């Protein structure tokens, strides 16, 4: 199959083939059917807290994504690479998921865990995110698991005190460092972003000199689009010079 065309295909049906990176074909097949099944069931019935469980302020959904190295991602292929793990509505249901997932520090390769409010996709393009931004904190290797746990516990427990503003949190495992981030709805709301920053400092026990960076999603999108555009232009230029070269060669052959 041709990945480039697959990435461009705007296809939400779930039959796209994004599992090339899986170790074996069998695992890939199994995973795909399981995922479709879980997505189907989560669409049908609402997730509610069980009896005697502690309800959360919001339902949340765990997502997992893994990028095949070296391939530029368009937003469609990003959407295809991201998998829903499941949705929970209570503290106990959260622990059922969390206890049966590996810790971020034990993930391999270029992968991310996302924990977003139910109904918000962990993508810049989602309506809840398009005017938003994120605080990002870069961590040296070995800290991600603990920081991620503290971050999501604070989010689930409504420790940020910014009303409806929080969208979700991400932990990104990268080659030399790990990154945790928390996304909010309104990047221009400075009171909110300041309060999120202060809560992050408190719940993550960060030393005062930790560098925290706020990025609006529009900046991220622009940067991403610019780099994609650059790739396309470069490819186009190469193709153009080839055709010209071939054309010239033919011309020389005919006339010469």
């Amino acid at each position, binding site marked *: 199959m041709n990945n480039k065309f697959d990435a461009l295909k705007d296809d939400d049906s779930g039959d796209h083939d994004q599992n090339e990176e899986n170790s074996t074909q069998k*695992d890939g097949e199994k995973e795909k059917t399981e995922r479709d099944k879980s997505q189907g*069931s989560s669409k049908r019935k609402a997730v509610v807290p069980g009896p005697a469980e502690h309800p959360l302020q919001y339902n949340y959904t765990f997502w997992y994504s893994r990028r095949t190295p070296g391939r530029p991602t368009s937003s469609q292929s990003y959407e295809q690479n991201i998998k*829903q793990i499941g949705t929970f509505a209570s503290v106990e249901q959260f622990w059922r998921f969390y206890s049966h997932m590996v810790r971020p520090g034990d993930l391999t390769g270029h992968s991310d865990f996302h924990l977003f409010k139910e109904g918000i996709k962990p993508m810049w393009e989602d309506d809840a995110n398009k005017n938003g931004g994120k605080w990002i904190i870069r961590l040296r290797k070995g*800290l991600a698991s603990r920081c991620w*746990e503290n971050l999501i516990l604070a989010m689930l427990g*409504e420790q940020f005190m910014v009303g409806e503003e929080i969208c979700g949190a991400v932990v990104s495992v990268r080659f030399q460092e790990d990154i945790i981030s928390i996304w909010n709805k309104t990047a221009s709301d400075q*009171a909110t972003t300041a309060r999120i920053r202060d809560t992050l400092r408190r719940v993550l026990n960060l030393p005062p000199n930790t560098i925290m960076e706020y990025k609006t999603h529009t900046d991220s999108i622009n940067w991403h689009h610019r780099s994609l555009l650059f790739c396309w232009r470069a490819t186009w230029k190469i193709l153009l010079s080839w055709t010209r070269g071939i054309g010239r060669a033919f011309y020389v052959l005919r006339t010469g």
Partner: protein
Amino acid sequence: MSGGSSCSQTPSRAIPATRRVILGDGVQLPPGDYSTTPGGTLFSTTPGGTRIIYDRKFLMECRNSPVTKTPPRDLPTIPGVTSPTSEEPPTEPSQNHLRNSPEDKPAGGEESQFEMDI
């Protein structure tokens, strides 16, 4: 946080529409003070009304609830990411993870939080 674990879930009640507290840029509500509210009700001081608030300590205690020992029924199998089957031998790293949370890791558990140079 003031020590005691708080599960500050409030019974649902109609929100009186007459009272409205406008909060400025957030400095009036220092984080840390809210868990001292008896019963944990934050009604009318929380932007957006009543909220279900849990502190870290309480959430960690819920982890030991028996229901958390079994994986969710529709947990997808993602190799290296999820471990939905509970009939794995106890030597599996994922099973160890159940007991060894980052919290009770013997080495560098509590310290690592403070000696972060980033």
